[in-house]
């Protein structure tokens, strides 16, 4: 049976055979972000893969992460392609660098997770909030329930963190 869910009116269906993604989204549904860790070289990876991108070994185990990170880059969508996003403009696509494994295995590598800026309850951020964050803003995981026991990893401003002034696109 495929895992069936729904996000912003879009159907989600994760096939029986797609074991890594079933695990990824149901583990996120349990409240914590988990990533695959290679059983040979120990390195974490994102997104889900069928072997280790760093050493090619097939074996992995799931490891929980802190769910904390900082915005590494972003873009702000003002013209949507997908109709379901029309009601949420502008929305922000974030590239969040997780606190774990920064600069490994190589100097400029990192676990950079794609997501949206959301409110603490998981709704896409309103414009004022979108305009307040930028590169460097500390964020925390918000697992957004999408049904079927699954959650989508989304990101909210981390209220507990010390926030420096973020870098924003210069032409506002």
């Amino acid at each position, binding site marked *: 049976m495929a895992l069936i869910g729904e996000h912003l009116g879009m159907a989600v269906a994760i096939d029986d055979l797609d074991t890594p993604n079933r695990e990824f989204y149901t583990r996120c549904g349990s409240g914590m972000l988990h990533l695959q860790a290679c059983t040979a070289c120990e390195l974490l990876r994102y997104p889900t893969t069928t072997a280790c991108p760093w050493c090619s070994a097939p074996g992995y185990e799931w490891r929980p992460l802190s769910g904390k990170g900082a915005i590494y880059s972003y873009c702000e969508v003002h013209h949507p392609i997908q109709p379901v996003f029309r009601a949420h403009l502008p929305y922000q696509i974030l590239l969040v660098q997780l606190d774990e494994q920064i600069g490994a295995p190589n100097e400029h590598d990192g676990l*950079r997770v794609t997501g949206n800026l959301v409110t603490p309850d998981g709704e896409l951020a309103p414009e004022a909030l979108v305009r307040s964050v930028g590169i460097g803003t500390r964020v925390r995981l918000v697992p957004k329930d999408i049904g079927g026991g699954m959650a989508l990893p989304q990101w909210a401003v981390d209220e507990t963190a010390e926030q420096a002034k973020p870098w924003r696109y210069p032409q506002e």
Partner: protein
Amino acid sequence: MNATDINATDIEATAPKHLRGKYAIVGVGETGYTRGSGATTRALGTTAVRNAIADAGLTIADIDGMLSYNGNDSVPSTAIAGDLGIRLNFYMDCHGGGSSTEALVGMATGVIEAGLCKTVAIFRSMNGYSQVRVGGTGRSTGRSALSGDALFGRAFGQASAAQSFAPAFMRHMYEYGTTPAQVAHVKAIHSEHASNNPKAYYKQRVTVEDVLASRMICKPLHLLDCCVETDNGNCVIVTSLDRAKDCRHVPAVILGVVGRCSKPRLDSYYQAGPITTAAGAYAKDILWANSGVGPEDIQVTGAYDAFTFTTMLQLEDYGFCKKGEGGDYVSSGVMRLGNARPNNTSGGHLCEGYTHGIAMVIENIRQLRQDVDDSCPIGANGRRQHTFDYSEGGCRQVRNAELTANLGWATPTTGSALVMARGV
């Protein structure tokens, strides 16, 4: 000329040096660049291939190889060959976008060298405006359930090329202080070039201020930072230099190719850094070594302009300037016709039309023939009498063009490139 030593590495180029200068592009064909072609991709492709064969001075019977690329939005070689009565000894249709033309030119030299066929037509046909738009609209998969890779992109409203690449562009501004105005010069300069290209879809000149005042699509990309979407078919014909001598035009000799060279994480280009570095940083070590020339030798570039930013990143990563100084390079005027190294003299994808790269190769072939199809008068010998007056509506021929480079882009993680020289 000397091989480049920029970021010299111990990478040994993979193509045998003896292929350098052994093959050439002898024919180019186009349909024109429209919105609303009123024709199928099959009809557009047929026209482009037929035009290219005629341009080369070849006959249908001379073509025995065919290569094409598409994104599940077009017609295969079998249909075009069938319609034109071409019997093929070799053909292949592959999935791909902006990193395909140059790679397929390299593949054509390989299959000819291997004895599989003698003369190869490479085409791309697309109704990129009136049928399947690259941004994702008009494609039925846009409404299918999120599963697999789509969960890591489309679920977050990251569906189009702009939305996928923009984090790399934004980070470049953060890391290097690149400004919106610097990058906007790419569009302004390409629009000047397009104003001298009667075929261009957008012939109107625009300024840096126009770009910055255009509405935001996906910050940092304004509307005018993004390429045009058009309907068109295009074709180039590759054969051996020996056979090229019997063709109509001065051949564009293939010096070197790098094909679909990639960064470490082909599946997710933001995991392997720096994310502001594109595949060109790897590709350059093969391209320049294979070609036997370096960026300092190149007179005309065709740096892929799906977006203003892609042109800048490609020029940086192939070593036309130092990493991080792309903003200075593209705003310095060096890329403008009449200056040291014009880029996309047709107006490129930002202005002429969107072809997934092949039209930029065609433009450089025409530059090397020193017979670009601008509005200059045609003389008694049937050739254009180029004035080298680059004002609006004027000439777009580069004086004494002898050496060009095309820098193709698929995503930040994959690129292809081609160096061509004017033959005799």
